[in-house]
């Protein structure tokens, strides 16, 4: 058992447990906190895959940004409704059947696919490679992404504006 193997299993258990908690806990606020745990665990998976830059982006944008926005939304709606929001679920059995069917389909594909790829040692600094790719072949995509973020900001402002 190498350190990577132990780390992978620990992270996998944490990720799956917090993901299950996100979809099963009745308290919406707790669900967001479990989502934060799941997002951090995903970041650690990125670390196991030798991508420290993506780990940082995951923490900053997902665990920092998304969770903050969702907590704001929950607090705003709870304040407007004046009571605690409870999460109820419906069609639990049907949902479980569909989700399990999707997993079995993907797993069956994984078993049949020839995935025995070698484990290449990635000695090059991927952060520098990502930077060169972003401002080289993907420069126009990056610019479009900036436009998209501005549009999303304006759209969110428009929807959430006050009436007057």
């Amino acid at each position: 058992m190498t350190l990577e193997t132990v780390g992978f299993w620990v992270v996998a258990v944490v990720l799956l447990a917090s993901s299950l908690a996100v979809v099963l806990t009745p308290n919406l606020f707790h669900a967001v906190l479990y989502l934060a745990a799941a997002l951090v665990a995903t970041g650690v998976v990125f670390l196991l895959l030798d991508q420290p830059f993506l780990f940082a982006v995951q923490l900053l944008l997902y665990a920092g940004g998304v969770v903050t926005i969702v907590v704001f939304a929950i607090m705003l709606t709870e304040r407007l409704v004046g009571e605690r929001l409870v999460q109820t679920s419906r069609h639990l059995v049907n949902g479980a059947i569909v989700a399990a069917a999707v997993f079995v389909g993907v797993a069956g594909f994984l078993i049949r696919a020839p995935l025995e790829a070698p484990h290449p040692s990635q000695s090059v600094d991927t952060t520098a490679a990502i930077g060169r790719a972003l401002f080289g072949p993907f420069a126009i995509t990056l610019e479009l992404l900036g436009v998209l973020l501005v549009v999303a900001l304006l759209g969110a402002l428009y929807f959430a504006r006050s009436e007057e």
Partner: protein
Amino acid sequence: MIGLPAYLTLAALVFSIGLFGVLTRRNAIGILLGIELMLNAVNINLVAFARFSGNVTGLVFTLFTISITVAEVAVGLAIVIAIFRVRRTVEADRLDLLRG
């Protein structure tokens, strides 16, 4: 040594859990949380494939996915709050204004 299939299986499990959440939650915010889990699983897949093929394109694609997800969540929650102001509910079952 952990190989590519282990990461892909983990991602498939997280994707299925997120799909279960999207299908069973009644609250619109809860559905958004399930979508977050599914997108997260896709990111794990992209990074794992990029790592094991030694190609940087998957990493760049992951960056784009993360950014677009953040924008999507911002607009989605703004819509949820706007709907809540009008209908006083965020339960997806009761938002049937467009039903014919």
